[in-house]
């Protein structure tokens, strides 16, 4: 059973959703070189730059808009990513946020269940767009386990911060598990066996996304 919430509410507001987005933008900026380096090893060395350009645009767009509901926050971010990132990352992360936004709908605040459902919808959006599966050595190797862990933890009544922490752990494991894999999707697949031994850049940026959730979405809860 979920613990009582002394702070009054548990969940994801327009403010905390925006804070999450900003935190991810910061994390991407901080890790820009590292992401690009990972992408240089098995891709084309632009993942950090691309995501940084896109997330800076997303944060700007968000600041300029007065989103009244969580769905609008996510859709704004998704559209910014689609129109500013390009590459594989743009449409994929764009789909993640746009589908999350659709699932979130017009709510001004999402419950933990609501967020877990929206996040799952977003991840399914990535699957639908990119047609990759778990084990293909992509961002989905971090996103799918995170979505599942979050849903399960919330379903089991785990406290909201703990549920987010479990999602982060799942994302981290999934990210690290990409290291030995031979890529089957994305640019790394061109390398065949040579793609093994390197961590997937998209899984790494996805882990950052979930990690930022533990720091921002749990705010205001015990």
């Amino acid at each position: 059973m979920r613990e009582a919430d002394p702070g009054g509410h548990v969940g994801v507001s327009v403010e905390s959703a925006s804070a999450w987005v900003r935190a991810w933008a910061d994390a991407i900026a901080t890790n820009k070189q590292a992401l690009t380096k990972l992408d240089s090893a098995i891709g084309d060395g632009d993942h950090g730059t691309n995501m940084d350009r896109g997330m800076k645009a997303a944060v700007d767009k968000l600041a300029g808009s007065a989103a009244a509901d969580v769905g609008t926050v996510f859709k704004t971010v998704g559209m910014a990513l689609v129109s500013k990132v390009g590459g594989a990352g743009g449409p994929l992360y764009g789909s993640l946020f746009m589908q999350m936004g659709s699932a979130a709908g017009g709510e001004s605040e999402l419950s933990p269940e609501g967020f877990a459902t929206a996040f799952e919808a977003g991840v399914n959006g990535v699957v639908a767009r990119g047609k990759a599966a778990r084990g293909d050595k992509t961002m989905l190797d971090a996103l799918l386990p995170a979505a599942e862990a979050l849903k399960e933890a919330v379903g089991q009544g785990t406290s909201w911060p703990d549920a987010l922490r479990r999602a982060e752990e799942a994302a981290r494991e999934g990210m690290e598990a990409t290291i030995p894999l031979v890529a089957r999707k994305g640019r790394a697949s061109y390398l065949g066996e040579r793609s093994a031994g390197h961590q997937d850049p998209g899984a790494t940026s996805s882990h950052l996304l979930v990690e930022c959730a533990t720091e921002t979405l749990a705010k205001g809860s015990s």
Partner: protein
Amino acid sequence: MKKLINEPDDVVREELEGIAAAHGDAVRVSLDPAYIARADAPVAGKVGIVSGGGSGHEPMHGGFVGRGMLDAACPGEVFTSPTPDQMLEATKAVNGGEGVLHIVKNYTGDVLNFEMAADLAKDEGIEVEAVVIDDDVAVQDSLYTAGRRGVGTTVLAEKICGAAAEDKRSLHEVADLCRRVNGAGRSMGMALTSCTVPSAGEPTFELGDDEMEIGIGIHGEPGRERMPLEPAARVVERLAGPVVDDLDLSEGDEVLAFVNGMGGTPLIELYIVYNELRKLLDGRGVRIARNLIGPYITSLEMAGCSITLLKLDDELTRLWDAPVVTPGLRWGA
């Protein structure tokens, strides 16, 4: 990083400004969203052809905009596919009422962004067909992977489909032709050096002084195999061998032989490669009926080359010979 640039972030915009200033009589350049279109677009009654992809492959694609080739090209950031809004605006700008063909190189980013753009264009009532080019034999094809990359055949497809569109063929016919070119063309490339993405500032990979990388793409991705340097004759065997096999070329076949420079390799070396290629093909009884030699689909300042062979028939040869007037490829007018 040694480049003739100003700020890394401004590379693509400044390049486009340069193109606009240099070729303003022939092309129209939009900076935001970024695309290059024929000055006379849309051409009424003609299928429009749009391509695009990351920058850093010049003259492809922007240098191929003009009569007899592309109606528009969308340049992304360096090695990053452009975004759907660029493609949508370019598609709208060149739609002469007969629909628009998207020629897409098979990279996840390019395919996904062009898919989104096609959906948006269809929402606006524009008929769009997309053909994905996947001609790189260095990559194993499979239903369960991203499949082969699109490389050198793209240039040939853009030229040949451009000629067909000038002939006022229908969208469906031009798209079919494009698929036929894709089926008849195969490529493989190699690198002597890596290249440096301006925003990264460092070479994408490191190669020893006596090493080369076989089976590279056009984005500084490492190739399939790293090995000691070899003479040009042996390198040509490594590249052309798999291409000839994959195309199942046999005695009496005619091909267009395309020896492409990766950006940092000078013409003198490309002619030596071509000389080896013609000897190899001679030995198999394959006749080179047409050729193209030079840096046409590049990877920034990478040193290296790629070989593309396109199996020709009378129709493809005629369309290849048709006039083309672009900054990057020009003849017959």
